[in-house]
């Protein structure tokens, strides 16, 4: 898993729950990386699972809820890191439709080893979109948070509902309807 996910996750934990919680979940997770992450590195996905599990126990918030919150947070962080990507779109739907063909292509240029989820568009109109998320990680809540924050970024809002196509969340269908 890309380093930026870890660094931004810990950033969010620190901002939201403080330095002590951050230190605690790092220590309790017994990580091979010892919690030392850099956005240009790549780290074992299990470290994220450990960190998320420890955080959930520590703050008593379900893991998916935390991932959703992290999604909202991560959109802004990625936007700050690569503002030109977001600027090239003029609507949230356009951005979402281009994840697979445009954004992930650019990600692969910088990080050829990145393991990216796939987003397959099954239906589309000017104001609605149906996307199937597929990833062995099953981090669909993170994806939902990112999508929601995307609409907010464009001063818009949408109702995003999801349907687990597989119980472990490795394949999820999102129905997105833009408001107004």
């Amino acid at each position, binding site marked *: 898993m890309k380093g930026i996910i870890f660094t931004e996750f810990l950033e969010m934990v620190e901002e939201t729950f403080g*330095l002590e919680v*951050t*230190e605690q979940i790092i220590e309790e997770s017994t990580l091979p990386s*010892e*919690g*030392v992450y*850099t956005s*240009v*590195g790549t780290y074992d996905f299990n470290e994220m699972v450990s960190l998320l599990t420890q955080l959930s126990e520590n703050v008593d918030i379900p893991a998916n809820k935390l991932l959703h919150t992290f999604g909202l947070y991560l959109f802004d962080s990625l936007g700050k890191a690569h503002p030109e990507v977001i600027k090239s779109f003029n609507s949230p739907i356009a951005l979402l439709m281009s994840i697979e063909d445009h954004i992930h292509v650019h990600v692969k240029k910088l990080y050829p080893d990145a393991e990216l989820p796939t987003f397959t568009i099954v239906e589309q109109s000017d104001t609605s979109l149906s996307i199937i998320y597929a990833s062995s990680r099953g981090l669909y809540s993170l994806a939902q948070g990112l999508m929601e924050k995307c609409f907010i970024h464009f001063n818009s809002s949408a109702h995003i509902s999801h349907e687990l196509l597989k119980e472990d969340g490795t394949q999820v269908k999102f129905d997105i309807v833009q408001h107004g």
Partner: protein
Amino acid sequence: MSSMDNKEVVLLKKALERQKKARRQAERILEEKSRELYETSHQLKETNARLENLLSEKTSELEGVFVNIVDPYVVMDLETNVIRMNSAAVQFLGYDFPNEPLNLSTLVHPDYKKYTLDALKQLYSIGTLKNYRAKIFLKDGSLKFVQVNSSMIYDKNRKPIAAQGIIRDITGEMEAEEQIRASQNRLSTLISNLQTGVLLESEDRKISLTNQMFCDLFHIPVSPDQLKGADCSNAAEESKHHFTDPEGFVKRIEKILKSKKLVLSDELEMKDGRILERDYIPIFSDGKYKGHLWTYQDVTLRKNYKKNIEAQKEKYWSIIANMNLGLIEVDNDDVIQLVNQSFCAMSGFSEGELMGQKASEIIHVDEKNIIVEKGKERLKGKSDSYQVKIRNKNGETRHWLISGAPRYDETGTVVGSIGIHLDITAQKTLELQKEELLVELEASNRGLQEYAHIVSHDLKSPLRSISALATWLQEDYKDKLDDAGVYNLQMMQEKVEGMDKLIDGILKYSSINSETLERKPVDLNTVVNDIREIIYIPEHVNVIIMDTLPTLEADATKMHQLFQNLIGNAVTNIDKKEGIVSIGVEEKDRFWQFYVRDNGVGIPEEYHEKIFKIFQSIGNEERSTGIGLSIVKKIVDLYQGEVWLESEVGKGTTFYFTIKK
């Protein structure tokens, strides 16, 4: 510091430691990536270079391999079997390759077999073959001229495996070249046969072209071809001896060559008397001097022609001036342009008085219209002769015979007429005299005829009286007269009879003339038969018609007289026991030739002409008056015939006469 503070410091220290580690990790990762990137780019460069090598190798090996090119492209093996060809080649050659195997050498026209073999050898040994040109047969049998550029194809060990070539159809070009060649040939034939000596020099004064005429003009003993390339820089000096002004010739050439300007019709006099005309034509191509052309023409004849004409004119003029015929030239308005000495003498005017005057005004012609009419004829280009009566300066009447002809200028337009005059006054006078004489003669002839009639009539009546008196004398004095008296009276009767015949003869003779001639068909057989009845023919004489005689358009009486006189003559002259008078005819082109032949006494040669004259008779035959043959002659003359005789004394006589058809 509180424990809270301490705890926070520891946490921060730990966090800082993590951040430092993270930075070092990031730097390490970046260095690692950098190295990887370097290696990758290095590898890429290597691969690139290898690929480039590969590409250039391919390119050099497959030079001219243009499968997609428009021109026909063919790859063949070393036995000239086609391995590959593009669609353009398939279309051009007409062979359905690869379904139809094709060996290229089979396409080559027989004339190009050897050339092709040599070309292939060159291709195999050198590796390329440019501008191979040959005629080939296409599938449909048509013949094309093609140009092929080809090169060998080698395997990686540089071993030749095939050859490739691009075919270009140059049939059209070759035809055009052929045409150009043909026209060049025509041109050079033209130049070589030109009646002008031609010398073309290049800019460095080498002979590019010359012809036979040039060699002939300057007596150059080699062929024009051998002169090609010869240096002309000293030619003027070498050939100056041909000319009457050698130095002038050399100087002139130097001047011309220096100025390089067109020079036409330079005249050169040669020592052998010929005159040449020379043109100099500089040749410029794109404003650059490329050489020059000399042309020489022998104009000796042309030059001499004018001189000859002058000389001839002189010669003829002196003849004209001195001839005994008057010559006058007038223009279309009859104004005198030229007269000769004789004309002046004839007319009585001097040359000064005549020149510039109107001929018809100064010379007084009796019938002026004749001159006007003849003038019109001349304008039509007609020439003829006519007579005029004029009065000369002294007022004397003269007769002139004029031969007139139109005068032309060099364009063939009639500009006047020319007349040759002969003074025929003397002849004319004679002619007039003759005419007068004839008239007189006719009158006197007529008078003579009348006289003959009167005389014969007047003579006959005393004769009849004498005859009657003699008869009475004989009857009345029968008893008183002795034998001699009776004999004398008989003789007197006979003489009177003879006199009577003579007078008849004269009358007949004088009445024979053309005015009284009748023209009717006369069967001469009937005429002769009648005569046989009328005249006395003794028992021992036979008159025989040998050939059937013709029927002529003639006067019956005259024919009768003609034959009667000749037959009578013949019968009279028979002295033989058996007398034969034969009459025959022979038809000739323009006349009939008759004969009357006897076997009588014959006529001595000295009399042959005399006997046709009036009152001439030979012998003393009482019955002969001497007029008969004169009448024969006169009648034959009337029919524009001739009469003659062949005779041998003692054997007989043949009279011949002809009558015009």
